[in-house]
């Protein structure tokens, strides 16, 4: 399997207030098509790592190759281009634009690719249909349930046909039944060959991924192969 993400000795320090060394030399390789979860206690640096992977944030030292391109010191314009082309984001709080309906939200990444409106909306409807939200296409976000919102967000992440999907606690705001449904959707997406990285602190979620990266105090504590999905629900020593 070809490598899609290659991190070499990534360091990140926040300087707002007292310097906070959040990532302390992260080495990581993720292959195309993998379904990976990143686990760790709150404040361990999961989101920071994911944001760096998503080119939403910079790192201080080290090297990050995405799709064999070195992602370092990019201009904002270039970063925006890569985000749009290569990466699909899914957030805990959905981050839908409140005054746009589901279809328009899904179509937004294509707007920034200068796709025409008709094509854009047609594709958005297709993706919504795939996620079982066809009838909700013209509803505003505040008319949708949490699960529906997250599925809209997934459709939006998928529409630009990215190389990787990055999900930061995608089920964090959902009840367990809805969480399971959303996770099912994500697994199905992964089954089509899409690389997927899910940050979570729920062991139940992590257990359904094929590889679990455990983060502790800014370093990778261990990487577990979980292709057997044998991770115990009751092993909670590293959680929270």
């Amino acid at each position, binding site marked *: 399997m070809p490598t899609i993400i290659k991190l070499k000795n990534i360091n990140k320090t926040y300087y707002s207030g007292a310097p906070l060394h959040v990532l302390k030399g992260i080495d990581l390789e993720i292959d195309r098509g993998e379904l990976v979860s990143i686990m760790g206690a709150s404040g361990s640096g999961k989101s920071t790592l994911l944001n760096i992977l998503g080119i939403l944030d910079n790192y201080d030292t080290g090297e990050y190759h995405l799709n064999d391109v070195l992602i370092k010191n990019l201009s904002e314009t270039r970063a925006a281009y890569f985000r749009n082309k290569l990466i699909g984001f899914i957030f805990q709080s959905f981050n839908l634009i409140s*005054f746009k309906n589901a279809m328009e939200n899904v179509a937004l990444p294509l707007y920034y690719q200068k796709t025409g409106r008709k094509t854009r909306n047609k594709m958005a409807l297709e993706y919504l249909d795939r996620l079982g939200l066809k009838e909700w296409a013209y509803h505003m976000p505040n008319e949708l349930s949490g699960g529906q919102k997250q599925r809209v967000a997934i459709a939006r992440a998928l529409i630009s046909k990215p190389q990787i999907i990055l999900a930061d606690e995608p089920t964090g705001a959902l009840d367990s039944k809805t969480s399971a449904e959303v996770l099912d959707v994500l697994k199905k997406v992964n089954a089509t060959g899409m690389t997927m990285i899910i940050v979570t602190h729920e062991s139940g979620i992590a257990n359904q991924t094929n590889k679990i990266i455990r983060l502790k105090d800014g370093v990778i504590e261990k990487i577990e192969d979980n292709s057997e999905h044998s991770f115990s629900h009751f092993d909670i020593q590293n959680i929270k």
Partner: protein
Amino acid sequence: MFDLDRWNEIFITISRNKIRSILTAFGVFWGIFMLVALLGGGNGLGSLITGQMSDIASNSCVMWSSRTSEAYKGFRKGRWWQINNRDIEIIKAKVKGLDEISPLITPWTPTSDNAVRGDRKGTFSVQGTYANFNKIDKHTMQYGRYLNDLDVMDERKVCIIGQRVYEALFNRGEDPIGKDIRVDGVYYKVIGVGRGSDNLNFSGDKDEMITVPFTIMQKLYNYGDNVDNVFALAKPGVAVSEMQEEMEAILKNNHSIAPHDRQAINSFNIENMLKQVTGLILGVNVLAFIVGMGTLLAGIIGVSNIMMVTVRERTQEIGIRRALGAKPSTIMTQIMSESFTLTAIAGFLGISFAVLILQLVDVGLAAGSEGTAVFQISFFTAVVAGLIIIILGTLAGLGPAFRAMKIKPIEALSEE
């Protein structure tokens, strides 16, 4: 390039908060309305004033005598003297820049009910002039004709009456031409009815004036050789002030007045007057511009402020857009376009509204009897106002747009 999608985005965001957009737009609307309306007002005022002065040839002057202020050639100071017929002839012969010269006689105050026709009467000023006086201070003839040289030479008892004189002495619609009226005890034949549009004039309100040949008046009113005023018109291209100096020198020489006596001769030069009025109009326009621009700037600053608030409120939305691939420049153009659109719409409505109001004023003035004036701004001014709006609208968006551009997706997304 016209990008329908982008404009759609802009209109959605502007109309999302209608009240706020309208209130903000109103500031700009009011500002540009004030600017254009004030400029139009300045314009109109100017045209009213110059319009009223239009009877008087701008390259003309008038002189009259006064007490001397210096002793000279054996004469004591404080002496009275009079301009006379001989002065007129000498000036006419010697001053090269002179085009026309006319003496004028007009008794200080008319006696009560001095003009009579049958049982109708009224009190009106009488003046005696040459025929060429009409080139200097113009009558607008409504019936008949003005004086001609023969009237003056032959000392004919003819007169031009003003509009008000006609109304007082004749029935409405009655043809006055050829009819006799008695003025200060002497019968004159009416040869014309005229009026003037000027309030600012040399010799009084033409509407209430009876004008007769200078020669007959000088004789009948016992002026001897004397005249009250002398009016002169300079040749085209000759400065009135130069002609005036030459005339004054001749008068001083003829009457043994000290060459540097500054009080013996009074004069009035319409050229200087026009210059002052032009200066005044310019002043009014500058003031209008300053006040209008002030109001407009306040409106624009309002837009800028609101856009700033909007950007702050939309931090998360902008963050999402950035995460999804919006370039900083895209965000910047979006905010600029929003500010620009809001300003432009409000601005062009304001200009249009002001133009409409000014047009109504013009139409109203034309319909009324106050004379015509042009309050309407020129096309050029409208274009400049439009440009100002476009520039200010863009500037107003600049600050907020830069702020929006600086928003980092990650900070925006973590803000909840």
